[in-house]
């Protein structure tokens, strides 16, 4: 039931000297990060740390801001038009059926909808029987699975996941994390999260965003994802990260 894998390169992405400045001041300044190709990179930060700004910078959504630095793909091809984006809410259009929401990108670009791929991808996320439903009839978890399907349908070089699991209950979250990990395997992914456990469990690489303006600091992770949260090293690391983030973000 998995979609026929169209050959899309999953290049690494280099962020160098990234600065974003809105009227008031720098949100980000000279931030460096490397997203290894075909891997999951997790970016951990407290709310207000500039995570979303960074995602928007990479996605090219920073209208009205002063930008500096560069975002380059390792294959030396421009990243514009090669990015898929998944957000905290599913962003499903309520007037479109599940299948039409998955294929939204094709319609927006004026391309033909690949119906077979839509069916295959929906089967992959376990929603084959729901393709004609309207979003309002779906549960939160189902909605986010459709959003994942839409991201997969886009079949992009870089997948930006901006806290896509944070609104889900613990059980659904765990299930959808596994599903995403499995279906986005071999793709370049940047997962932004404020949950240390999520970051440690899913990331090949982990960056912590802290400071003002924010800097990204890389943290070494043992082994490969998905990591066992029962592991003593993982628990210790998560505890340390939580304390660090709490100390950083006094509210």
């Amino acid at each position: 039931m998995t979609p026929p894998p169209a050959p899309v390169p999953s290049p690494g992405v280099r962020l160098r000297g990234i600065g974003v400045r809105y009227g008031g001041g720098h949100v980000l300044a000279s931030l460096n990060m490397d997203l290894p190709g075909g891997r999951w990179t997790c970016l951990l930060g407290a709310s207000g740390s500039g995570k979303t700004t960074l995602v928007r910078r990479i996605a090219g959504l920073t209208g009205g801001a002063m930008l500096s630095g560069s975002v380059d793909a390792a294959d030396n091809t421009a990243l514009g038009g090669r990015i898929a984006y998944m957000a905290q809410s599913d962003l499903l259009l309520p007037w479109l059926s599940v299948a039409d929401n998955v294929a939204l990108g094709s319609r927006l670009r004026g391309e033909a909808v690949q119906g077979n791929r839509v069916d295959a991808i929906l089967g992959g996320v376990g929603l084959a029987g729901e393709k004609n439903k309207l979003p309002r009839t779906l549960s939160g978890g189902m909605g986010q699975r459709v959003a994942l399907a839409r991201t997969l349908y886009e079949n992009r070089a870089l997948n930006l996941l901006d806290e896509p699991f944070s609104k889900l209950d613990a059980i659904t979250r765990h299930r959808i994390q596994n599903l995403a990990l499995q279906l986005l395997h071999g793709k370049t992914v940047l997962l932004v999260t404020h949950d240390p456990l999520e970051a440690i469990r899913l990331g090949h690489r982990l960056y912590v965003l802290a400071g003002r303006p924010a800097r990204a600091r890389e943290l070494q992770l043992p082994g490969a994802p998905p990591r066992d949260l029962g592991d003593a090293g993982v628990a210790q690391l998560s505890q340390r990260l939580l304390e660090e983030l709490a100390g950083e973000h006094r509210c």
Partner: protein
Amino acid sequence: MLKRAARTAVTAAGLLLLWQAVVALSAAPPFILPPPLTVAVALVDNMALLSRHAVVTIAEILLGFFIGCALGLLSALTMLRFGAARRWLLPLLVASQALPVFAVAPLLMLWLGYGMASKVVMAVLIIYFPVTAAAYDGLRRTRAEWLDLAAVMGAGEMAALRRIRLPAALPSIASGVRIAAAVAPIGAVVGEWVGAGAGLGYLMLHAVGRMTVDLMFAALAVLAAFAVAFYFLVDALLRRALHWQADTVNPTKLAEEKPT
């Protein structure tokens, strides 16, 4: 549906009874308040006359409705697209609404004559503002995240407008169109009162002048019947187009919903 029809019938019967009771109790002469039966007789007797004038009024209402809605939507899109249009058109719009349309009716007669055109323009003037305001409001309140998603997906401005902004604004636009359907008859009839050679408003005015109040009530009944039927038709069509929208007052049954 059947229940709704039954409710309407009960309401109508109740109103007719009340009317009859007022006539009986007040002993009003028939040239002031004719009883319902007299009006029904007048309705049947003057069927040909009434339908001839009704056709004119209905044509005015429909033309005014469609032109007004189209112009309103067009203006809203223009204001959305061009900042200059927004700055120049919006104050004009508000000013146009501050001026009572009834006050310009005689002027419209003078400029456009006693024919249909002046009445259609009256209806358009009344409809234009609510449709423009509602459509513009809906168009500019698109969820920013949807537009961001579309931008990342590589959507052009037109595609985003057509696939996201417009459908997202439909509930607002529908509110404007509903108001338009309700007030379009007012524009047409006011226009006919000020000066016309045909139409239900004209017929009513003349019926009162000749003290044939039963005919005036018959014309009023025809007008009311059309106005109500037109509103409900528009409302039903809009509801059907917006079936995806959750209605918390009259929730549609989600038969296919399964527990997850």
